[in-house]
């Protein structure tokens, strides 16, 4: 494969940037070129947040993802805003608990994950992002799955070590849906 361009979008607080960092670390550990670019500014504080992640075999030019191969929409405004930008043949992952509509495109594949509901049912409140990540890893073999634990241990900070297990469990849950 050449290059995978990923766009993750949602509300601030849904762990959009964290999920992106996790994917970037997985790529890094596969010895690929990676870049991670967040939206920043006032929108980080409660509004919409998004981040561009690129994982590639070649050196990365622009770190800005304008036509994602993979869109992860964690709320309706994000789907409304980015659905049309997804590259033909790409994939859209949505949190079905928060998004009631399907997609309008017929040249991309949608994966609907009831992530927020699954998270609260299984005691992983706040980890809907990682449940979706599990599904993303399952559906996108190009991302690899050898370094899930290693990447997680990089992105879960020392201070929050106790959250590592629940993050891993959430990813596993999403993977096995």
């Amino acid at each position, binding site marked *: 494969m050449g290059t995978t361009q990923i766009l993750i979008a949602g509300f601030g607080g849904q762990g959009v940037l964290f999920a992106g*960092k996790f994917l*970037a*670390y997985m790529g*890094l*550990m596969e*010895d690929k*070129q*990676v*870049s*991670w*670019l*967040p939206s*920043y*500014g006032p929108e980080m504080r409660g509004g919409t947040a998004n981040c561009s992640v690129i994982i590639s075999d070649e050196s*990365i*030019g*622009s*770190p*800005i993802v*304008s036509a994602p191969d993979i869109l992860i929409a964690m709320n309706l405004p994000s789907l409304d805003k980015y659905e049309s930008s997804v590259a033909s043949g790409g994939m859209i992952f949505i949190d079905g608990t928060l998004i009631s509509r399907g997609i309008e495109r017929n040249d991309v594949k949608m994966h609907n994950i009831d992530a927020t509901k699954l998270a609260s049912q299984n005691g992983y409140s706040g980890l809907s992002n990682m449940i979706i990540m599990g599904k993303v890893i399952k559906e996108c073999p190009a991302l690899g799955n050898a*370094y899930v634990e*290693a990447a997680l241990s*990089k992105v879960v900070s020392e201070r929050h070590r106790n959250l590592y297990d629940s993050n891993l469990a959430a990813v596993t849950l999403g993977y096995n849906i």
Partner: protein
Amino acid sequence: MTDKVLMKGNEAIAEAAIQAGCRFYFGYPITPQTEIAAYMAKRMPKISGTFLQAESEIAAINMVYGVASAGKRVMTSSSSPGISLKSEGISYIAGCDLPALIVNVQRGGPGLGGIQPSQSDYFQATRGGGHGDYHVIALAPASVQEMADLTFKGFDLADIYRTPVMILADGTMGQMMEPVKMKDYTPPDINKDWAVTGTKMMREHNIINSLCLDPESLEISNFKRYEKYKTICEKEAMCEEYLTNDADIVIAAFGIAARVSKNAVNEARANGLKVGMIRPITLWPFPKDAFERAAEKAKAFISVELSMGQMIEDVSLAVRCRKPVYLCNRAGGMIPSPEQVLAKINEIANMSNSK
């Protein structure tokens, strides 16, 4: 697995500065560079260094001036409006021939402007920025790895030439994460016997000063400083050339604009167009030679910028107006897309074909 780590550009600058032996940081919060201050606030107390949040950008740059006078490695960082405030102090630092590192993670202007990425402080950085005849060495990183590498380089250049050095990044470079590996680094051995460390009653007093009321002497000191600048221009200009050997159209772009343009160059090549890129790494001194060489073969140049067109003047000067130089730009915090750059390439390719 790799030994690289993912870091934000801002953090890479901070960590590289620490590894380069900088133990003094003074700053004032401003988006999009505040991670540098936050990183320093966390790390400096643990390594017996100084992090101080100054009362203003003006105070911060003058604290830098104080530490630089004492002969120690020191830095400050800010974003566009804050750099304007620091410009007085930078002029003094240049006028006293002191080494210091100043980081500008640019945002859109003028005035308070916005907080999204911009390159519209190019003139300010490459023409000095404050009052008087002086330059700062302006370094333009285009990756997080370069944010680190050019920080090491910046401290060295500052010490070697006794001059302020500026890293001219932008919001994207500051905020994005990419893999970084810090280099093994030993600082150059530099004699700083000019520093004000106390006479110890063993020598005449040292004076750090830019006041000179006698115009003849002031003129001499200006000419002497420009001799130094001449050496810097001869020895320190840096750029990356990408597919320029056979290029009919050469793009000039730095920082994030170069990253975007690289996509467009690759796309154009795939379409059979001979397009290349020169990416200045030093904006001052400007890598004129590369442009002059490229102008022998190229039919046209395109300056891709996140500004209303500033570097384009240096490109035009470097090719001595022998070839047309076109502008492809966004401003105010917007970033050109690879498609926009490609469209400009196609437009110019069609123009020269129809001639």
